[in-house]
């Protein structure tokens, strides 16, 4: 197996994830795109572990750790999204402007609680 194939697939998958994070408005879709990026990293780790023949299997063990961290991350992320939905009635990340620097009352008054 040429190392180029998995590495290029993972680079393209990472770029697709970046597009999703930047272009989507729904917070859950943003979380899905983050998962895509994490999977790209995992594929990279596995490919280089197979290439380098690490005796300690560092790449694959790190892949397992990343999978576990991704599970924890998506659990906490969804809890935060649900909390935001309970208080603001929306999970549209373009309308959650409570932390922006703009002066109050600039056509985003409805999302301020």
């Amino acid at each position, binding site marked *: 197996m*040429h190392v180029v194939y998995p590495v290029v697939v993972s680079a393209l998958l990472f770029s697709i994830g970046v597009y999703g994070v930047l272009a989507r408005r729904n917070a859950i879709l943003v979380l899905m795109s983050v998962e895509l990026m994490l999977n790209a990293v995992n594929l990279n780790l596995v490919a280089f572990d197979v290439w380098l023949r690490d005796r300690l299997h560092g790449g694959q063990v790190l892949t397992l750790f990343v999978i576990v961290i991704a599970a924890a991350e998506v659990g906490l992320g969804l809890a935060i999204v649900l909390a935001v939905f309970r208080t603001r009635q929306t999970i549209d990340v373009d309308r959650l402007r409570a932390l922006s620097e703009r002066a109050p009352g600039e056509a985003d008054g409805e999302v301020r609680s």
Partner: protein
Amino acid sequence: MTAQAPGFWPPSGPEIIFLLLGAVTLGSAVLVVTTRQLVHAALWLVVCFGALAGGYLVLTAEFVAWVQVLIYVGAVVVLLLFGIMLTRAPIGRSADLDSGNTWAAALVAVAMAAVLVTVLVSGFRMAYAPLDPGQGAAKPLGSSVFRTWVLPFEALSVLLLAALIGAIVLSRTDIKGRQ
């Protein structure tokens, strides 16, 4: 590591299978980030993760492949579907899933893909990894987790406990903050 690298043509059997699985992965990933229906995005995510697990299998990382199927396809996607249902998202076609900066996002993504692919191809064009099965089976991976990597493993269990408690505290409504 890089000895006796065969040419790119003809591709070997595992390479053909890996490229087909990679095409499925990338296609379903594009559908995840472009589809207009929220639930379909989660279902395409299942296809993407499943094809990626197949790619791990081709790369002889069996244990990682099964963990991927169990945790990603089994747990994470179900959790995301729960999130979709609980936020009362519109089921069906909805036009407001993309923000206004789609073109800027596409530009950034294409530029990043171009840079990454150029650098990686020029850097690893000659690298060749011969596949021999059994390298990523459960036995060698388990012995390495519980011998060398046991400290990060235990730290991760504490992290999972913290994430569990944090998710419970965040999603309960009857816990008030300190006055």
